[in-house]
């Protein structure tokens, strides 16, 4: 029984490994099912859109591109399995992924060992960059974003007393630490920090504490699903004259459904109306394909696939050459022009990119009147 079973399963893998035809494979690894599937959706849509656009314009060197979606549920264990699968597939020369930093960190050593370059459209954890020369990302790091937010809160909004409500995860804590460091310099008083976990829906105890502190604003360096709950629960508790702000984690249409979130502002790597003509086409195509506006996950993954395609076009399917090509995009002049601005990498493979601020006005995301120039 055991042997028969083994044979069956081995042949399945063989099948999976060889079934694709002549197309150039660009795998996209992200959570497409499970709790974080809603984040992965943007990544999926953006990547598929770019893929079909490339194919419509004749493919890469005359060959079609096939976007292969690899689901890893944001689970480090699954991410490592997926990474092994990709690393051992000779048809794969570059990977777009992963989304969660924990998944990225689990997959990283495997890509490194297989000399397989990877571009993450969304992992913002600070410690990733130094881990591997084969890892790139076209999204900024948490520390940059936190610093930017502190400056914005101080110079544009003029907040004096801020309370921080963070999620116990790497993204949120990295942001918080960067924000606090800069806030200290700028003289913003941090009234208190409270934590929550992703699986909770009751934020009232912590918010009640904030209410008594009477902050000017509450900084929520978390994700939208919890962010929207936090805002509405805060309002129902009677926190009315405090502002709310967050980072790109809150940049989601989910927030728009919440009438209490009026006035909330966030940082984002991608602003449709500030992105120039290149983005306009993207937004139109995206609306046509999926019936809604792209979020920054979509824009970044669109760009990441574009970068991958550009690299393959330039140097072919050799993994190390692709890596060298990507690493050579290291100044503003050589930058890849994507829909989410120019992308170029520093020596760690981290990208240096502008951040924008947008806020909710009348139930819509609009770019904030005042942007902060770096």
């Amino acid at each position, binding site marked *: 029984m055991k042997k028969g079973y083994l044979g069956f399963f081995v042949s399945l893998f063989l099948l999976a490994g060889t079934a694709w035809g002549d197309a150039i494979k660009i795998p996209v690894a992200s959570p497409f099912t499970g709790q974080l599937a809603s984040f992965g959706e943007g990544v999926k849509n953006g990547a598929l859109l770019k893929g079909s656009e490339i194919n419509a314009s004749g493919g890469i060197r005359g060959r079609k591109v096939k976007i292969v979606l690899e689901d890893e549920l944001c689970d480090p264990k699954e991410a490592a399995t997926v990474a092994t699968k990709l690393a051992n597939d000779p048809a794969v020369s570059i990977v777009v992924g992963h989304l969660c930093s924990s998944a990225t960190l689990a997959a990283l050593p495997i890509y490194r060992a297989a000399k397989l370059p990877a571009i993450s459209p969304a992992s913002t954890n600070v410690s990733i960059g130094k881990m591997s020369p084969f890892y790139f990302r076209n999204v900024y790091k948490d520390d940059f974003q936190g610093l930017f937010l502190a400056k914005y809160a101080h110079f544009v909004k003029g907040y004096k007393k801020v309370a921080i409500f963070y999620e116990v995860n790497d993204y949120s*804590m990295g942001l*918080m*630490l960067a924000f*606090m*460091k800069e806030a200290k310099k700028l003289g913003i008083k941090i009234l208190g*920090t409270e934590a929550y976990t992703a699986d909770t829906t009751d934020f009232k105890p912590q918010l009640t504490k904030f209410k008594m502190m009477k902050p000017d604003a509450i900084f929520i360096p978390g994700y939208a699903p919890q962010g929207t709950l936090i805002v509405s629960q805060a309002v129902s508790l009677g926190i009315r004259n405090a502002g709310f702000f967050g980072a790109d984690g809150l940049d989601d249409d989910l927030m728009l459904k919440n009438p209490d979130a009026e006035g909330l502002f966030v940082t984002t790597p991608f602003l449709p109306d500030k992105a120039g003509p290149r983005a306009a086409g993207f937004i139109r195509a995206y609306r046509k394909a999926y019936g809604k506006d792209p979020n920054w996950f979509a824009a970044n993954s669109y760009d990441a696939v574009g970068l991958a395609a550009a690299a393959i076009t330039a140097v072919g399917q050799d993994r190390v050459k692709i890596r060298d090509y990507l690493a050579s995009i290291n100044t503003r002049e050589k930058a890849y022009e994507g829909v989410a601005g120019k992308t170029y990498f520093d020596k760690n493979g981290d990208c240096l990119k502008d951040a924008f601020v947008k806020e909710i006005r009348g139930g819509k995301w609009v770019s904030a009147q005042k942007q902060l120039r770096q």
Partner: protein
Amino acid sequence: MKTILRVARLSKSFGGISALQDIDMEAREGQIVGIIGPNGAGKTTLFNCLSSLYHPSAGQIFFGDRPIAPEFSSKKKKLVAACALVFLFLSLLWTPIFWSLFVPGALFKVETVMLGLLLLGVRFFTFRGLRRFEIWAWGLIFLFLAADICLALFLGGRPLSQDRFLGTSLPLGWVGTPWALAALPFSLFFGLQLCTAPARRLFGFKIGPDAVTRLGMARTFQNIRLFFHLSVLDNVKIGAHCTMRSGIWRSLFRTRRQRAEEEGAEQEALNLLRFVGLEQRALVLADALAYGEQRRLEIARALASRPRLLLLDEPAAGMNPQESADLIRLIRRIREKGVTVLIIEHDMKVMMNLADIIYVLDYGRMIAQGTPEQIRTDPKVIEAYLGGGVHAPA
């Protein structure tokens, strides 16, 4: 003949209903002692007290000269309570003192938590009877653990600073935490010793059923309690548990000693199975045995612990006359091996045939004792069994 079992003024009550009241009895070496009585007379309760599955409410049991159930007077209980309270205070004091040694200024912060834990402890303490004392003591240890962990977290510097995240230069508040974690096992150990050891020594704990078996008293059960999913042989080998010594390491490395022991146990188990007539069935699962065979297996398992006293709880229940005749022979042979037998039985024929001395229980009281002939003619017994006035049970 030496007395092997002595029961003095034994009482047992369940939430106000007394199942046994002032039982006095004794068994001498080599006797077969019978206990009879109508249903609900408290026979099985008596057995459970003897094998320490129940703890008597009052009275004493001596096995040889070893007390199995020491008496707990209410005065003694109060003393235990007082002592435990002292230990509680000591143990709760201990943690902040320990902490203040490592982290100056910790004492003050900690007081509220300690007070809360103290109140909690005292409150639960007043609820607990002595029977659950051990659980109670363990609960206390858990409090210790909780307190230490709470402290470790408390003192761990509530503000989340950059230093903490990078883990390079620890702020002063953190010096305590690794120490606290390192000290946890010690604190647990000493806490345990503080709470349980003196109480054990001073007041004598009840002996567990396993210890009773090790002392040489084995039993069977009214409703058969075999290990049904194990083989017959293994059932008997489990019975021989306390005659063997090998532990984890010897079993892992199959030392010569362990192998010899296993072999001996297996041989003896087979001998015992032959003794009760189950040798042919040694390698089937106990589930597959017939009812009468299961009864005999239970006896074999009890004998495997090499007991001096064997308690048989209705061994003939559900047997046909042929089987009970076999059983009578078997019990006689057991006695010939030098094992004293204490037997509960409904089947009067079996009892009258077997017993040297019979005790009669009714409604938790001992109403008669004597040789089978005396019992047969005792008017109290006749009344208990038949509601009075009619002939003696045959």
